[in-house]
């Protein structure tokens, strides 16, 4: 695809959870829980508030189409603030400082006085019905010459358990939101930018890790298309595919529009009730429905069934809109007869609605309230298809497709959080913030300073054990053994099911130091870490594993082994080193570093051989 001529413009909003000790507006820890650990449940209804202009935000109105009861699961790690039963506390200074650190990396300018806002979100994911958010800094730049528009500090929303059940453990975890300018022109550039932003965030060493802790929203538009925001892209590798598929969707929708205009297509605002007509239907869905009505899309025939994304048709777009009213989906004549609806039934509906073969009829079924609402949605979406690609917020589906969530929110959905006092950023405070070494730079430094292989260096810096590596270096442990432990030993242990989360960095360093000074052999490291992970005190584990042999002790053993094999050694010369080494290792049962044994053995064989040669 020629993105240039398509006029692709894309920007990213990246949301990253911060690994602070406490939540953004209360003193709860930021730990995620299993929903089975919940100790209390309650439920609420959320309602959009009318604005001064008599408007309810269009995105909020969409969410209100169904009256929804939201159930919240509380834990012994959540408090009344998450319950929306107590005013929020002051803004968490640790989170603010981290946010400012990230802002400084991008050369941004902090806001003089930060104001916490309430952003209306009534999909149930926030108990209050709004998300607290604050604009912290503006106008930064990327090495690629792209611009960062804003960085905001926000509270994370609840995790949806299923349906309208939400888990409160995640609510209130600090989140930074970085918004880039719409400077990206190709799908790959979007992915590369997301990767770079992710790297910068990781460089602080204070961001949460794991699936769902970082989410990208992508804003995409093409010439003649519209701005669409795709929410919640979690897998970095899928980003360019998501962008490509959105472009495909918009291009397809524009082609559909052109064809509709050519045909002189139109949407009838009148619906027809066909409930009685379909009384004897074999279709399971329609049989259950209290009411079935038909929307006539004049001249849409064949186009509703045409593909807009792999496996998704224009009809799927109509269906997404209808689903907002609580119906399971729609049927349309481009795909019928099917799903238990017979050809004869289609014909009778067509006759009843007096439709032309070039028309597409959409069947909406459900209860009375649902079908009226859903038909309206289908009509609105179909009408929009005659003019443009609607501006939407969409959510990502597996493999990179997207589905409709709600209209793009208007700006009319933020107002001040009066319960939190604005925070002044003092210039001394800004001045004191230290920019962390970026992981890209650090990886390069590890290559040059410690002689690590570039790929290993990258693995180390992006690993959660980077602090272990840096602490180990500080303690004088050799880089090679540190990097090997991080990139292979610990990974293997985890694969074997060892609870390596029980190991502290200082435990691991103690074990590696014991290797370094020859107290234990490096072969013993996995067993030692296993023992410590299972509860043995690290020093005791080392003692137990250590042979307790000094170099002199080893020399005695080595001499004994040599004296028993004089002939063999004389015959093989230095070539006997390998076989004899194996025998000595057996004698000391691996509890001594092979390097030390080999060193002693070399000395002793040399001296034996020279002695033997002498007259």
């Amino acid at each position, binding site marked *: 695809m020629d993105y240039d001529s398509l006029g692709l413009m894309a920007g990213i909003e990246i949301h990253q959870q911060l690994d602070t000790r406490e939540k953004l507006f209360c003193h709860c820890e930021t730990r995620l829980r299993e929903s089975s650990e919940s100790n209390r449940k309650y439920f609420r209804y959320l309602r959009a*508030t*009318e604005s001064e*202009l008599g408007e309810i935000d269009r995105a909020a109105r969409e969410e209100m189409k169904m009256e929804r009861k939201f159930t919240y699961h509380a834990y012994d790690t959540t408090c009344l603030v998450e319950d929306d039963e107590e005013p929020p506390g002051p803004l968490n200074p640790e989170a603010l400082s981290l946010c400012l650190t990230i802002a400084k990396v991008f050369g941004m*300018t902090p806001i003089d006085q930060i104001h916490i806002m309430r952003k209306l979100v009534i999909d149930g994911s926030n108990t209050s019905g709004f998300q607290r958010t604050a604009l912290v800094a503006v106008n930064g730049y990327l090495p690629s010459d792209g611009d960062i528009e804003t960085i905001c500090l926000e509270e994370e929303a609840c995790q949806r358990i299923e349906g309208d059940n939400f888990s409160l453990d995640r609510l209130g975890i600090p989140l930074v939101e970085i918004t880039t300018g719409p400077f990206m022109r190709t799908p790959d550039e979007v992915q590369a930018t997301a990767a770079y932003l992710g790297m910068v965030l990781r460089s602080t060493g204070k961001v949460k890790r794991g699936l769902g802790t970082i989410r990208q929203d992508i804003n995409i538009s093409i010439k003649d298309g519209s701005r669409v925001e795709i929410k919640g892209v979690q897998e970095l590798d899928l980003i360019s595919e998501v962008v490509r598929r959105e472009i495909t969707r918009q291009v397809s929708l524009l082609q559909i529009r052109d064809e509709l205009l050519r045909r002189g297509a139109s949407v009838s605002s009148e619906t027809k009730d066909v409930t009685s007509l379909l009384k004897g239907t074999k279709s399971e869905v329609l049989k259950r429905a209290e009411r079935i009505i038909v929307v006539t899309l004049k001249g849409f025939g064949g186009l509703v069934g045409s593909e807009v994304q792999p496996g998704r048709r224009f009809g799927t777009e109509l269906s997404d809109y209808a689903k907002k009213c609580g119906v399971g989906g729609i049927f349309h004549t481009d795909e019928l007869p099917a799903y238990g609806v017979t050809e004869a039934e289609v014909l009778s509906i067509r006759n009843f609605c007096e439709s032309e073969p070039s028309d597409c009829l959409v069947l909406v079924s459900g209860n009375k309230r649902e079908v009226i609402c859903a038909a309206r949605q289908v009509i609105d979406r179909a009408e929009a298809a005659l003019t443009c690609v609607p501006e939407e917020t969409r959510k990502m589906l597996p493999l990179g497709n997207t589905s409709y969530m709600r209209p793009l929110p208007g*700006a009319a959905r933020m107002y001040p959080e009066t319960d939190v006092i604005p925070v002044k950023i003092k210039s001394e405070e800004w001045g004191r913030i230290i920019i962390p070494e970026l992981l890209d730079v650090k990886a390069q430094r590890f290559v040059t300073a410690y002689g690590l292989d570039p790929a290993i260096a990258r693995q180390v810096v992006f690993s959660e054990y980077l602090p272990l590596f840096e602490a180990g270096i500080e303690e004088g442990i050799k880089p090679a053994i540190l990097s090997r432990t991080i990139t292979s030993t610990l990974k293997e242990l985890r694969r074997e099911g060892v609870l390596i989360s029980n190991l502290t960095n200082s435990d691991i360093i103690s074990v590696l130091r014991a290797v370094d000074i020859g107290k234990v052999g490096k072969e013993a490291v996995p067993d030692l870490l296993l023992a410590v992970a299972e509860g043995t005190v690290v020093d005791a584990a080392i003692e137990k594993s250590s042979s307790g042999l000094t170099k002199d002790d080893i020399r005695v053993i080595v001499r004994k082994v040599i004296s028993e094999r004089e002939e063999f050694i004389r015959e093989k010369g230095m070539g006997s080193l390998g076989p004899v080494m194996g025998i000595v290792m057996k004698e000391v049962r691996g509890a001594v570093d092979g390097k030390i044994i080999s060193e002693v053995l070399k000395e002793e064989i040399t001296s034996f051989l020279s002695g033997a040669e002498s007259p």
Partner: protein
Amino acid sequence: MNQTFESGDLIRCRWGGKDFSGVYVTERDGSIVVKLSNGYNIGIPLSVCSIEQKSEDTNIIVKTIEQDKSLPVLSIISTGGTIASRIDYRTGAVTSQFDAEDIVRTIPGLAGIAQYRARRLYNILSENMTPSIWQELAREIYDEIKDGTYGVIVTHGTDTLAYSASAVSFMLDSPVPIVFVGSQRSADRPSSDNVMNALCSAKACVSHLGEVAVVMHSGSSDDRCSIHRATRVRKMHTSRRDAFQTISGEPLGHIEYPSLEVSLNPHTQHRNSKELSLNDKMDKNCALLYFYPGMDPSVIKRYEDCHGLVIAGTGLGHVNSGLIREIGHFIGNGGEVVMTSQCLHGRVCDRVYDTGRDLLLSGVIEGEEMLPETALVKLMWVLGNANGHEEVRSLMQSNLKGEFRMRSFYGL
């Protein structure tokens, strides 16, 4: 540059090396607050901004609300606290709605329950309430009932809501329900308890209820509201939705949500069981004193100008023996002292220990099962209406408005 902006003005500012436009909101702690086009407010120095366009009057879109003439008429009297509000997203300002139409527009469900006439009596924080306002409120309610209202909803800030409800309860005999309602979460937020509390209070007002009550959330979920007797209710939590609790005993009833089904308990006074009458005299010169260990007798002396004193004593109704003499003086000089308990639950009994017996000897009136706040309000009313110590004692120890029961039952 010495310029002043007005809220709503479009201004042009430069920050972080870029120019941008925004709406001037207000000044705060030396910065000006600007609303950006993305909805965020930021605080920046005045000096970086200049006027771009003066504020224009925005067209407030008002949908007219048709009230259903077949429904009973309820009166809404607001004293402060918000039952309904609107947000101006241009500036972020939240404004309270007081007009009946505005309230019904903001809480559409109300229209299906009754017709409304609304009046804003005051717009004050409930901590700024005074006994004079209680009196004014009682008179206002009296007038509404005389005018034929089917029930009265009083919107009130929650902090002192129970005091006001209790005061109205003593001053008025009413054939129709008088329901006090508030919200613990501000009305501007989608999760506010205002809508459910308002709907439930309206529903209580068209029910068989016939006394002064407080209607608020029963629990943390949006599943039911409780109807509390005005003289037995207390705010028991600083922030929770279910802060209002009937102390000792059952609430008058409940309203389920969203069905809005009302159920009343047998001890509830029903509609039309009393004739309308107003007795709004009160002696405001009373005080409520919270006893603590080591309290000095001089503390009592400082109240010598008061006509009545309610003491929240410890346990069964005690103060340290050092205070008894001073309390005796206070009573000897014509004052009245009513003893209540910090325990809130249970009955005062000053006949068990010596301290209690000495208090009784000095002339202290046992406040029975009364909440300290209710006892204070009642004492003001009794002193405004009774003649002489004996009548005061007799009235204070009579159950006038359900403020205490003669028998205590198990359970809190």
